[in-house]
């Protein structure tokens, strides 16, 4: 299992913001090469790995969607060698001042997010939390060098290296959703030694944090019979203790709500019970906020399941996960897929 942690750390040290997934995709491509029969890249940058099922074609298809893109920032203007930024994905501006970042210009430039002193800001802007439009990124270079190396539209990612905490907890940026890519990788590993009838399409999807673009487009050609979306969900912690969060390190979330096909929910619940994998019902009364929102309504509609890995401090550079939950998610997916019989789709019906 050491290689799984090494892979995860490698992914957490890589950039790959929404729409700019090349760096992370290359790492996943390498990791999935020995685990899949075919790898391809979609027209907008999602990675598709096909692991073929046994038996005669046509085979049923299950798609696993784990988005690989991360939140971050983008340069909007350059003033006096300092950069103005906007967000890619949803960032709370209150956690930004003082963060170490990397500006992906013509070369990677280490820098820091700067909160200007109140007296240099409009009167009302300097007192409370300072809005993103007033912040700068400073890379320590003189204006001429910045002009040469940085241009409008360059991405800015968190530079926080992953940290191992106690009790198999790991912290860092972009755990949302690289932990799910890791779980998908574990699932593919487990399927190497288990027979499965269905074709498995592992998709590291692009642009989830911005447009759900990968999830809207990849299923259109793949046309899976069912889809498993794996993403992070809220773990109980400071500020997230209500019904929308589940305990940290105590099992996976099984999504429940309009985006999720009830027969798939029931099948996953049954499988988790049989394997004694701890789980919690993760309520999604309206939309799930995941790739399932998109996949479910592609073409004639695709039955979806949403699997959640509980995560603390989502969308900060110190997101924290329990490695146990990642393993559980990988194992649960592999068991579910391995047990899909050729006629399993007949049971995925609305009228129970």
């Amino acid at each position: 299992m050491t290689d799984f942690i090494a892979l995860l750390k490698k992914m957490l040290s890589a950039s790959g913001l929404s729409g700019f997934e090349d760096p992370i995709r290359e790492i996943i491509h390498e990791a999935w090469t020995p685990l899949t029969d075919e790898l391809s890249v979609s027209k907008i940058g999602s990675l598709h790995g096909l692991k073929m099922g046994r038996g005669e074609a046509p085979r049923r298809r299950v798609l696993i969607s784990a988005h690989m893109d991360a939140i971050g920032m983008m340069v909007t203007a350059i003033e006096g060698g300092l950069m103005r930024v906007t967000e890619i994905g949803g960032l709370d501006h209150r956690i930004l001042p003082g963060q170490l970042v990397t500006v992906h210009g013509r070369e990677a430039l280490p820098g820091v997010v700067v909160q200007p002193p109140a007296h240099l800001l409009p009167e009302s802007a300097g007192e409370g939390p300072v809005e993103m439009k007033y912040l700068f990124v400073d890379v320590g270079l003189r204006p001429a060098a910045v002009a040469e190396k940085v241009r409008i539209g360059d991405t800015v990612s968190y530079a926080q290296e992953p940290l191992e905490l106690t009790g198999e907890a790991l912290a860092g940026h972009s755990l949302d959703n690289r932990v799910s890519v890791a779980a998908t990788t574990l699932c593919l590993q487990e399927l190497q030694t288990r027979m499965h009838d269905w074709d498995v399409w592992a998709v590291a999807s692009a642009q989830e944090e911005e447009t759900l673009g990968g999830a809207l487009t990849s299923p259109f050609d793949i046309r899976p019979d069912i889809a498993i979306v794996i993403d992070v969900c809220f773990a109980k912690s400071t500020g997230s203790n209500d019904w929308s969060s589940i305990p940290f390190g105590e099992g996976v979330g099984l999504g429940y709500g309009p985006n999720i096909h009830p027969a798939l929910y029931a099948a996953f619940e049954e499988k988790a019970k049989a394997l004694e994998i701890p789980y919690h019902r993760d309520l999604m009364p309206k939309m799930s906020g995941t790739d399932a929102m998109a996949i479910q309504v592609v073409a004639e509609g695709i039955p979806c399941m949403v699997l959640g890995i509980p995560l603390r401090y989502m969308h900060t550079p110190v997101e924290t996960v329990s490695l146990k939950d990642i393993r559980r998610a990988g194992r649960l997916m592999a068991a579910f897929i391995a047990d899909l019989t050729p006629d399993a789709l007949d049971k995925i019906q609305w009228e129970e």
Partner: protein
Amino acid sequence: MTNKLEMSAGKLPEIGASQIALLEKLCNATAVSGDEHEVRQIVLEAVKLIADEVKVDALGNVLATKFGRSDKRVRVMLAAHMDEIGLMVVKKHEDGVFEFVRVGGIDERQLPGKPVLVGREHLPGVIGAKPIHLTTAAERKNKIDESAMRIDLGPEIGEKVKPGDRATFATRFELLGPSIRAKALDDRFGVATLIELLKHAPDQIDLLAAFTVQEEVGLRGARVAAYALDPDMAIAVDATPAYDLPPWDDEDENDRYNTRLDAGPAIYVMDFGTIPDRRLVNWLVETATQDEIPYQLRQPGGGGTDAGAIHKVRSGIPSVSVSVPVRYAHTAASIARLDDWANTLRLLHAALGRVTPNLLVGERRG
């Protein structure tokens, strides 16, 4: 053949006791967006003998097709959503009461002091409120927040309710003279109307009835239904608010009524999701005028129907919406006129009978 044609031509759809009974059954069922089971069962039962093909898709839409008989048949999709706004139970608290969230657009001021029915078994519960004696004047100036409200099903509810269960207002269907009072007339009116139209489908079209899911949370069922059916044109049949109430300042004219009761079916010219094809708007208006069926143009503005999703599917599907005007939609008790419903059914039936391939010849002109 002749006999059969005469029979169907002479058999105009109407709203009688059996139609009202079906609507009652539909309104009293629970079908919060994402869990449309009960209404789907009623629909499947109703359409299985009248439609040529019936299918339940990946999202739970019921797609029922009635094929016409002539050579050049226009494929007409009719969409009515089965889901309704409601509640989902999200947490059991230690004192045995349940926290919930709203699904779909409900004004939270409509919730305190209402009875509800929870889960598939329709277990009765109440959304309580603090006794007025214990509230302060300052408190009464503020809305009671959703997160502060609870559903109480009594002290021995045990494990019969669990997080994830849906709940709706407990209001039962009732006739009030010329009107209906019920919950979920939005859009059980549409569902009941489509069932009647399937029974009386004209011969020169293929009638593709989509009983859709998840309209109230983003027109999600209609999108995939339209993709699968790939029709030539579409009509969303829905319910729309009638705000035909007196304005506070009685010198003012109410110029934001949306629709009015007793004015007939509401034909859409624009809402938040769709700018309907004017060829279809005109076809409906001309049908109503010629057949002397009352109609109104819904005031353009916000709101939306399944047409918002349908018209953007594939290379585009000319679409329009027709709604029954309903007062107090999205609350515990809406009120609507039987006549408006009957006229909506009449208009749609008459208009479908006039569909020819020429209707959509040429370019969209607004």
